[in-house]
């Protein structure tokens, strides 16, 4: 199969849809061996996943290079996630080398893999089973030209999670959150009014949009703790408004409603913050497990307590209003 380094409008549109989670696992290309430019038996072989964002990043960064690209079948999942699952792995790599008859196509035995593919690949096994030598290129495809000239520089081997990268993962979470959020907001609107709907929206957006942006600036280590803080800030205006709205005539309900916002909203934001661990480039299974045990009970008690309080407030106002 043949490919180019050109990223067309339809490629960009596909990337946009992938970023917004539209048909998430359907951004695939056919696995197999691709020719880029005019490769011969001595040109390097690059290995990637059959996710369009991975494949396109690779071929775009190899502009003006003659190369072979060996695309593994990772079921449309990016290199790092697929390596974690094992689909970007020793087994599939050896299989592709065999199916594509790579030993006949090239004279050399050098394969260049993305560094993040390493969690799925055992080079010593690949060598034993196929004769090919695995070499890890940079983490980011855009560093490949410099890597091919001068080898790996320390920054190429370091995974990052800068603002741009944090922003890039927001859309998918937003798309997942919108349907349930709309449902909850509509129900709350009919049960309690517009303020309650707005509170649900604010707590959710704080967790999904503000949290990724503010992540490195929030104090405390645990994601949940950071989320409680951010959710608390989001709840504060609601609590203050509820407290002062008719504090003169109904002192207890005013305090009750303020407390209800402060109990429910931060718990929601904290839960969303905790779930953001799945999008980062540095959280460990052990660390996240520990955080779940420590913080999920607090979230549950806080949220449950807030809901009970709301029910109590409604019940008393109904009784009070019947006079």
């Amino acid at each position, binding site marked *: 199969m043949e490919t180019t380094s050109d990223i067309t409008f339809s490629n960009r549109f596909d990337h946009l849809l992938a970023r917004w989670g539209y048909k998430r696992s359907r951004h695939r290309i056919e696995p197999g061996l691709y020719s880029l430019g005019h490769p011969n038996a001595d040109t390097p072989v690059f290995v990637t996943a059959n996710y369009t964002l991975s494949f396109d990043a690779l071929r775009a960064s190899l502009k003006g290079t003659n190369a072979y690209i060996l695309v593994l079948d990772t079921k449309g999942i990016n290199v790092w996630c697929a390596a974690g699952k094992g689909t970007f792995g020793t087994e599939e790599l050896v299989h592709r080398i065999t199916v594509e008859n790579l030993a006949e196509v090239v004279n050399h035995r050098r394969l260049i893999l993305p560094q993040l593919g*390493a969690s799925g690949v*055992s080079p010593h096994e690949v060598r034993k089973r196929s004769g090919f030598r695995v070499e890890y290129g940079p*983490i980011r495809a855009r560093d490949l030209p410099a890597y091919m000239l001068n080898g790996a520089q320390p920054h190429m081997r370091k995974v990052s999670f800068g603002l741009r990268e944090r922003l890039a993962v927001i859309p998918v979470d937003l798309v997942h959150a919108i349907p349930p959020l709309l449902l909850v907001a509509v129900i709350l609107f009919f049960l309690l009014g517009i303020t309650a709907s707005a509170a649900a929206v604010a707590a959710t957006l704080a967790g999904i949009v503000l949290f990724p942006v503010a992540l490195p600036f929030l104090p405390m280590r645990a*994601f949940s703790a950071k989320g409680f803080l951010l959710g608390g800030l989001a709840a504060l205006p609601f609590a203050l408004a509820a407290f002062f709205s008719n504090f003169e005539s109904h002192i207890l309900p005013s305090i009750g409603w303020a407390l209800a916002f402060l109990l429910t909203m931060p718990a929601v934001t904290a839960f969303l913050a905790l779930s953001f661990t799945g999008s980062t480039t*540095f959280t460990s*299974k052990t*660390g996240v497990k520990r955080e779940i045990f420590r913080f*999920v009970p607090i979230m549950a008690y806080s949220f449950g307590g807030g809901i009970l309080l709301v029910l109590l407030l409604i019940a008393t106002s109904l009784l009070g209003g019947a006079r």
Partner: protein
Amino acid sequence: MTLDTTINTLKYHTELCCNCGMCSTVCPHQVFAAGADAAILEHPENCMECGACQRNCPTGAIYVDSGTGCAIALMIAALTGKKEASCCGGD
């Protein structure tokens, strides 16, 4: 950026190291550094348990219980009784 891991499952047996340099090459958080005679475990606190070092170590000098640090996947796994749920979508 500060990391949320102060403990993890990473274990390194220096005496088995053949100093091939793979672990320090593949680790995306520079947990291992190249040394004169053996790899050096320099920043164990930065380990995210991706498992790359273990899989690339030809002598079995590194152990890590690898997996995804994804709360939703871990909670789904706990609720459904599966050992590991996947995080980044797919089949």
